[in-house]
């Protein structure tokens, strides 16, 4: 371990502060699943991912990460800043005119750490597979990580990708699902139920593991374990249960906070729950 669990939790707390401040600062954006995935991003970038912060598009010899549910950009931007990809002061420009921190991640503005645009849902798994195929052709045995929303899995392209990856033995791929059970119009179970995702992915030929995405120890161990499963002919799916809004009591578990910005009072209440550990931007 590069960090203790406590150190990682402290990083996640700062990222959560950044998320609510960023979304509050422009009065738009998506706090709910950003907060829910703060532990995952911390574990990935500070513990699991083999990566360099002097960014290159190809990332030769590095593990690559793709965010398919691009609306949770705040958690990614904050993570990239604290990991050293760019100065955290830039977080203040989120969603504002002339910013590199677009509402949804983009390569158009050349923000270090981003390799493809996302925001229109359902496309990231295919891209991750493509990047994995290229690495294979290049003789590079690094890992490809991807994160997908659970509601996002309703997009059919995911299932085209899900069929492709095992058939083509894309086995350095670790895709995680942010399994928070919520989407815009309500709980996923009411909008269009995903039912037994584990059985579905297993039927397609994936190796499925389950993790608790809001338990730092569990998510670090889960991602390390996932790495040990690669190279064995199957892609890995990490079904990661999270809480929308994790870390901010009034946001927890409700789809209402999928894409709503807190007001001043709500911001103060959120920040009171989240210790400032690395210094606010």
């Amino acid at each position: 371990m590069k960090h203790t669990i406590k150190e990682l939790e402290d990083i996640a707390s700062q990222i959560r502060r950044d998320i609510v401040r960023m979304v509050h600062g422009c009065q738009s954006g998506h706090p709910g699943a950003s907060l829910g995935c703060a532990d995952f991003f911390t574990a990935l970038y500070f513990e699991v991912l083999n990566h360099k912060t002097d960014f290159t598009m190809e990332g030769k010899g590095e593990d690559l990460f793709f965010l398919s549910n691009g609306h949770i950009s705040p958690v990614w931007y904050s993570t990239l800043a604290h990991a050293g990809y760019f100065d955290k002061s830039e977080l203040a420009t989120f969603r504002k005119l002339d910013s590199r921190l677009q509402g949804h991640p983009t390569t158009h503005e050349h923000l270090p750490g981003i390799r493809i645009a996302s925001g229109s849902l359902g496309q990231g798994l295919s891209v991750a597979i493509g990047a994995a195929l290229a690495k294979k052709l290049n003789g590079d045995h690094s890992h490809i990580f991807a994160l997908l929303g659970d509601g996002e899995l309703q997009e059919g392209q995911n299932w085209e990708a899900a069929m492709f990856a095992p058939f083509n033995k894309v086995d350095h791929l670790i895709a995680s699902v942010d399994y928070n059970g919520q989407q815009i119009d309500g709980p996923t179970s009411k909008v269009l139920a995903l039912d037994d995702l584990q059985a579905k992915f297993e039927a397609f030929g994936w190796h499925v593991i389950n993790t608790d995405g809001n338990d730092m120890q569990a998510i670090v161990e889960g991602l390390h374990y996932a790495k040990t499963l690669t190279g064995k002919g199957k892609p890995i799916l990490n079904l990661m249960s999270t809480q929308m809004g994790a870390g901010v009591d009034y946001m927890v578990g409700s789809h209402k906070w999928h894409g709503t910005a807190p007001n001043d009072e709500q911001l103060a209440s959120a920040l009171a729950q989240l210790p400032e550990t690395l210094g606010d931007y």
Partner: protein
Amino acid sequence: MKKYTYTEKKDTRSGFGAGLHEAGKKNENVVALCADLVGSLKMDAFIKDFPERFTQVGIAEANMIGIAAGMTIGGKIPFTGTFANFSTGRVYDQIRQSVAYSNKNVKICASHAGLTLGEDGATHQILEDIGLMKMLPGMVVINPCDYNQTKAATMAIAEYEGPVYLRFGRPVIPVFTDPDQKFEIGKAWMVNEGTDVTIIATGHMVWKAIEAGEKLAELGIDAEIINIHTIKPLDDEAILKSVKKTGCVVTCEEHNKFGGLGESVARLLTTELPTPQEFVATNDTFGESGTPDQLMSKYGLDAVNIVEAVQKVIGRKKA
């Protein structure tokens, strides 16, 4: 310059929601489908009164278009709802084959079109949808200009038989058209009669054209302003009649200059009545995050840009 005033600002998507509700009351064959954006599309009133005629398809736009096409076979009049990007580019071949080529009575209703979607940024701000949709044979393309016109258009397309693309937006803007207007598909609306230049505007740009018309009047320029809400079929007659009188034209749209209303007008004029034309449109670019007002200004879609284009095109007329 005719005086236009407004007492309130509303979003055109709310006009769609109200029109859908009315259309639903009038005709029990009207059904609605949505891909996890019920609130954004303002479908709540329809869903409340006609829950059995509403289908939530989840985040699956291609499936939604296919299901809608299928429902027409049972005599239903499906209105699909999602953002403009996911209503067009995302599902282009589904629309092309199952709706347009098959001539199915599907109403593709698209919110959050253009730059005024704002902070979400370029992934969501489609500026190519008018072009995509107008290229499909048989597709009617409508881009209304305020709450009242959007409501009227929504009710009108329910009564029209055939595929329609209805484009509207996110921000609140002035409500300045008649609440009881009769919406005629394919019929231009004369906003202001004038003699020096024809300004042809669609969607959110119509109010900006009115603002520009007032500034131009102060400069002694008498602008004719035409609202083209139906980009296809285009009201050739109204445009030709006006341009014959004024001798120059400025087209205004919240869309790429490639493929939009401006090109439709240019195609008409170049074959029937070659005329100097200037385009107020985005210039082959993606958008970005920002407030709607900031973006309209940065990308050259404000009243001042219309005024400048008018001055330029009048200069070309004299030359």
